[in-house]
């Protein structure tokens, strides 16, 4: 057996030069410092993405993406298909954890200023993936075609529609017509299972390739402490084994959540029912939703909603471009302003989310 494996390895090695790759892996080190714990969140996000792909494909075996059958097919998965409830609950729970870990990953990179030269492209691909994750969340939310999803999608696509000039065509494109109908469901289904995963995979490939090529980012303080040899840990096997252990813990957490808090299905969408009281979006959109509630209908000459949406759009855009306007970090200097901005954003999001939850 061992001989066979060795032969197989040699066969591949002759063709693919695996030895070089192993040597490269052996030279990869992970910096050890008091903020090392944040390095794990990228890996956990990757793991959650894989879970989403696997459970998503399993759900595709039974799901029907149409106005007449979408809700019923999920009912069928939840009640008739063996372990259907488990697969669907894991998919829903993982979606939420995925947004959370990606958010933590993003904020940790932001606070460490790891986006600084030479990792601008890694940050950009990461941000684009983060927006795609939100897109996954938004499009996937509609697929069960229930009451909450129906109104969430109405509001969400209408928000796109209030953006001046390009808004209306975008809204029509997203909805596949004037209103949220079965046409919208078909399009969202297509985005969710084909368009987004395709783009995401390409971005993820670039992101991971860059991480391998450039190595792990080291804290800014290391660059200033000349002479002190920095502490590191080999990536293989030390860091990888820790990664795997964490993945195992996350998988167990998911199993517990899915078993003890199975995801609800709610009531089937009805275009001629009033929006139910207490309706609110998923927690990761809650802070924006709550902000929109607080902005008055008219601000001077523009509609409050247009103002709020443009404000969030511009803020998100500037956030994505931070490696290009944070000159100080690029030069290896401390930039407190960035930290203050980050702290403000984190507090704003947490505060508005709590307010949105409680009200």
């Amino acid at each position, binding site marked *: 057996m061992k001989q066979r494996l060795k032969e197989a390895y040699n066969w591949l090695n002759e063709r693919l030069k695996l030895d070089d790759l192993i040597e490269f892996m052996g030279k990869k080190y992970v910096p050890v410092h008091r903020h090392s714990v944040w390095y794990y969140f990228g890996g956990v996000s990757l793991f959650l993405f894989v879970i989403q792909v696997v459970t998503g494909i399993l759900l595709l075996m039974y799901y029907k993406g149409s106005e007449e059958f979408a809700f019923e097919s999920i009912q069928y998965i939840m009640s008739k298909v063996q372990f259907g409830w488990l697969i669907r609950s894991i998919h829903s729970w993982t979606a939420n954890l995925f947004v959370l870990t990606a958010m933590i990953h993003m904020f940790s990179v932001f606070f460490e200023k790891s986006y600084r030269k030479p990792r601008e492209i890694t940050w950009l691909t990461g941000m684009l993936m983060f927006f795609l994750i939100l897109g996954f969340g938004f499009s996937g939310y509609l697929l069960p075609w229930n009451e909450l999803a129906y109104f969430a999608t109405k*509001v969400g696509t209408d928000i796109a529609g209030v953006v001046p000039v390009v808004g209306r065509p975008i809204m029509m494109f997203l909805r596949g017509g004037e209103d949220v109908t079965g046409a919208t469901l078909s399009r969202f289904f297509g985005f969710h299972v084909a368009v987004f995963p395709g783009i995401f995979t390409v971005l993820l490939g670039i992101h991971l390739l860059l991480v391998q090529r450039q190595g792990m980012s080291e804290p800014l303080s290391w660059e200033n402490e000349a002479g002190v040899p920095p502490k590191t840990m080999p990536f293989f096997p030390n860091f990888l084994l820790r990664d795997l252990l964490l993945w195992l813990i996350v998988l167990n957490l998911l199993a517990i959540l899915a078993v003890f808090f199975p995801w609800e299905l709610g009531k089937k969408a009805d275009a*001629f029912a*009033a929006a139910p009281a207490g309706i609110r979006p998923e927690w990761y959109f809650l802070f924006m939703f709550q902000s929109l*509630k607080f902005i008055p*209908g008219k601000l001077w000459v523009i509609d409050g909603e247009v103002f709020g949406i443009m404000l969030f759009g511009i803020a998100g855009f500037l956030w994505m471009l931070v490696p290009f306007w944070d000159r100080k970090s690029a030069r290896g200097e401390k930039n407190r302003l960035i930290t203050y901005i980050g702290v403000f954003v984190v507090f704003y999001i947490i505060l508005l989310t709590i307010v949105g939850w409680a009200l």
Partner: protein
Amino acid sequence: MIEHPQFEQRQNKRDFLKLMLSGSLLAWIGAILYPVFAYLKPPTQAEAVVSSVKAGKLTDIPLDSGTIIKFGTKPVILLRTAKDELRAFSATCTHLDCTVQYRKDFGLIWCACHNGKYDLNGRNVSGPPPRPLEEYKVNVQGGEVFISKKS
């Protein structure tokens, strides 16, 4: 540089080819993108233009209530106020497209999505809605309630 007539001629030929090729490339890209964008634009469906709908018998509509009525593909809210007045408004919130409802406890039209409130004349009185709700005409003929577009 010495002007070389042969070279200049060649350069002209080259420029011409460049123009032709880049022009063809643009036309080719356009020929691919146009059908794709046209395909993505949902076709306008011929809808039967609804100008009036029957909302039911007056006796079936309780006092101090609001009901959502199908007006073609759009929801309309029919109110019967506590003072026994019939009014109808578009049920689509002018804020972000949610469907509104009548709240007896407020005596107002209310949108659950962002806590927008309208009075019983459809005027936006509180919360984020930027405009009043569009009003519809209500007629009672032989005990039947009819809702129609205001012309």
